[in-house]
């Protein structure tokens, strides 16, 4: 708990809450029927104008801007007084979206510790797998040239020199110390997936790759293994933050929902049950 009290972000947030409370208190004392036109407002209006048109407004244009502003403020205040914001679908949606925006910003400001990243890496290790590295030869039996390439490949497997029985092809017939990603680029992922479990040191197969029929001789397979945390730290950071910001949004909603009772009054029993379970 001590540690938590020293947490700077907490201080920051508490100050924020305090400011919010103070602002609310001050605000109620202000006359609600007052519209303030001061130098700050005028320079703000002028600056916005300049951004859009690349020049200062003339005095007359400025007067027009002030008039517009006053008009907008009066209507805005009156709308608030008349409770027009209340239950207005558009206002509701916009405010909800503003809240989401704030939550996104907050989520972004929460940087994970290394410990959290390492933990994330361990849990999701499958995402940080290295490709296996192979040295292999293949013999290719093309469906273009044969009536039954699969049978031909099978018979070749039981001969002494299957190398001599294949078809000419522009596909690579040999790979030395090549990773599975490169091999998949040439021969497709069905081929490399098959390589993972085929025996080494003998002619084996056939593999049906989508390009044709292959038999292979794997002389070496360096198993995939995983990248170390340090090798992929940046990637882990990106992945973690993506997940964290989605989780954060969900968590925020869930926690806010605790302040509310969701009352489901519906004729449809099934939907009613489902919604009651959900909330």
């Amino acid at each position, binding site marked *: 708990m001590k540690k938590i009290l020293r947490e700077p972000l907490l201080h920051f947030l508490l100050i924020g809450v305090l400011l*919010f409370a103070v602002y609310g208190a001050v605000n109620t004392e202000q006359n609600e029927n007052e519209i303030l036109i001061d130098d700050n407002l005028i320079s703000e209006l002028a600056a*916005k104008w300049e951004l859009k048109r690349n020049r200062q407004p003339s005095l007359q244009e400025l007067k027009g801007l002030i008039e517009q502003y006053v008009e907008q403020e009066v209507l805005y205040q009156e709308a608030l007084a008349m409770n027009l914001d209340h239950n207005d679908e558009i206002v509701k949606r916009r405010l909800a979206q503003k809240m989401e925006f704030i939550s996104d910003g907050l989520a972004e400001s929460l940087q994970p510790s290394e410990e959290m990243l390492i933990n994330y890496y361990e849990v999701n290790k499958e995402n940080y797998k290295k490709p296996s590295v192979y040295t292999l030869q293949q013999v290719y039996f093309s469906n273009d040239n044969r009536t039954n390439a699969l049978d031909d490949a099978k018979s070749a497997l039981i001969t002494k020199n299957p190398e001599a029985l294949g078809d000419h*092809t522009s596909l690579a017939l040999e790979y030395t110390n090549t990773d599975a990603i490169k091999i998949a680029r040439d021969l*497709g992922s069905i081929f490399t997936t098959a390589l993972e479990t085929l025996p080494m040191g003998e002619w084996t197969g056939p593999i049906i790759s989508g390009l044709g029929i292959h038999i292979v001789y794997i002389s070496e397979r360096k198993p995939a293994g995983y990248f170390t945390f340090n090798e992929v730290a940046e990637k882990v950071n990106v992945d973690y933050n993506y997940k964290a910001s989605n989780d954060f949004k969900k968590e925020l909603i869930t926690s*806010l929902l605790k302040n509310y009772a969701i009352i489901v009054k519906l004729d449809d029993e099934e939907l009613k049950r489902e919604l009651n379970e959900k909330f």
Partner: protein
Amino acid sequence: MKSLINTLSLVVVLFTFVSCGDGKKEKEKATETTKEKVSENEVKSNVLNDVYWGDTHLHTDLSLDAGAFGNRIGMDEAYRFALGQEVTATTGIKAKLSRPLDFLVIADHSDGMGLFPGLLTGSGFIMTTPEGKRWKKMIDEGNAAEATMDIITNFGAGTLSFKTNDKEMMRPVWEKVVEAAEKYNNPGKFTAFIGYEWTSFIKGNNLHRVVIYRDNGDKTKGHLPYTKEDSPDPEYLWKNMAMYEENTGGQVLAIPHNGNLSNGLMFAETRINGEPVDESYAKERFKREPLYEVTQIKGDGEAHPYLSPNDEFADFENWDRTNLDYSQLKTKDMLQYEYARSALKNGIKYQKEMGINPFKFGMIGSTDSHTSLATADDNNFFGKTSGVEPSKDRAHHPFIKSKLGTIHNYETLASGYAAVWAKSNTREDLYDAMARKETYGTTGSRIKLRFFGGWDFNEADLKENHAQAGYDKGVPMGGDLTAPSADVPSFMVYAIMDPESGSLDRVQVVKGWVNEDGSLGEKVYDVAWSGDRKMDENGKVPSVGNNVNLEDATWSNDIGAVELSKVWKDPNFDATQEAFYYVRVIEIPTPRWTLYDKVRFGAELGPEIKLTTTERAYSSPIWYTPK
């Protein structure tokens, strides 16, 4: 008081979150580790090049129209999806590519970039405009499609009351775009280019360009994208690109697309300022625009049957009734300034006349998808916009509608991807390959295609290491034939089917040339084909047939070939004529996305809707210029 309680609960949530970690110190430590990180991969380089697949043209919710069309997912999802991960699409459907892409350009419209998130959060610049309020209302009332048309129409007509290049609005969004690309760029594994789309259209005629940088964030972050609001004239875009290169020492290129919706403007003889195309224009266009996006969701733009009546494959998914907003019908005389093949022909005519070719471009395909999902596979097509993600009746949605007519969603095609022959998968190597045009475009299928031109290729070169022979004895796609050292040039072409798509029907060489009198010629040569079909007396190989099962959307690859290759010599070569040669590979018929919809969802499709397609690849040309 209620709001105070809510704020407090926000604090509680935050608190539970941070208390699992150890706070700021750890954060610094983590950053340090990140800096010292050992690289995950040494970048391996292949001098004979590998082919890398990507989409140079993808929109996210940052694009005004994508947002209005309903897209609610952003750059993170776009990159993750391209990397092969599963993401949730806007409509809630899970989406995943069967194979990851190697690179991606998120190319959101620069005009009004980030305006839509502003519209959604009801914040910032856009809500100070009457249009913003109107669109917001339309969208909230569920009329997103109408809002989009309203946006496109007013934007095209230049009748918006506000400027779409407001720097205050653009800067934070551009910084986000750059940061996202930096975050996902992973040299050797996945390339995230920094880029955007310059969205010029003049009276509804499409002149759009995707702009792609070779450089990292340090150079690009400070250079805001150029907009149509700045100027709708591409010559000013090129000036802006030149300025970027001068100021930063970086490199940038532009890729135009959808000449088919430009009503004769894309490759016109007249510039936007009314002057004829001249030497300085040609020089600049040649320098800035090395590639053309020849196929994408809004139509295939390689060739048109009116321009190429003898090419039985030219009639392929053309969109030829109108311009981009359907405000003006197309006339036949516009076509020659819209399609890649005729532009290449007009280009070599300029070459002959003024010694420089403004239309000397290579080819790529890309999606132009507005869903944040780069899908170009017919069996996994998420459509042009979020409103037409997979569903039973999406085929019938109107895509572009005006009082003149309608383009229906069923006319969109699941196309395409860009294939780039590069040494390695890095921004620099891929960019350099694009700059030298060693690229080709496909309609989504991952056909592997090599194409070399030289003077002494022979059949033996096909037998051994053909790529080595190709580079040793000639130039690859996108290159220029060297001075003649034989009577006729020889071309070596190699195509391998996509193991997940249809087998190959045929490989063709398309030749264009300029006659002595300045008239233009073209011819399509069948050079390699599957099975034992015989070429007829007109030099045509008969149709391969169609075995697509319309009941279950399957087909058999038996009728096509896995590999097709050929050393081809031009039988009609004339050393005094400017010419170009490019390859078109055609697959056997396979199910179109509409057929998958029919089988999967029971979509009801009338006879006007095509159910099969023939995927294809288009190589960059090799040019011959007499000395």
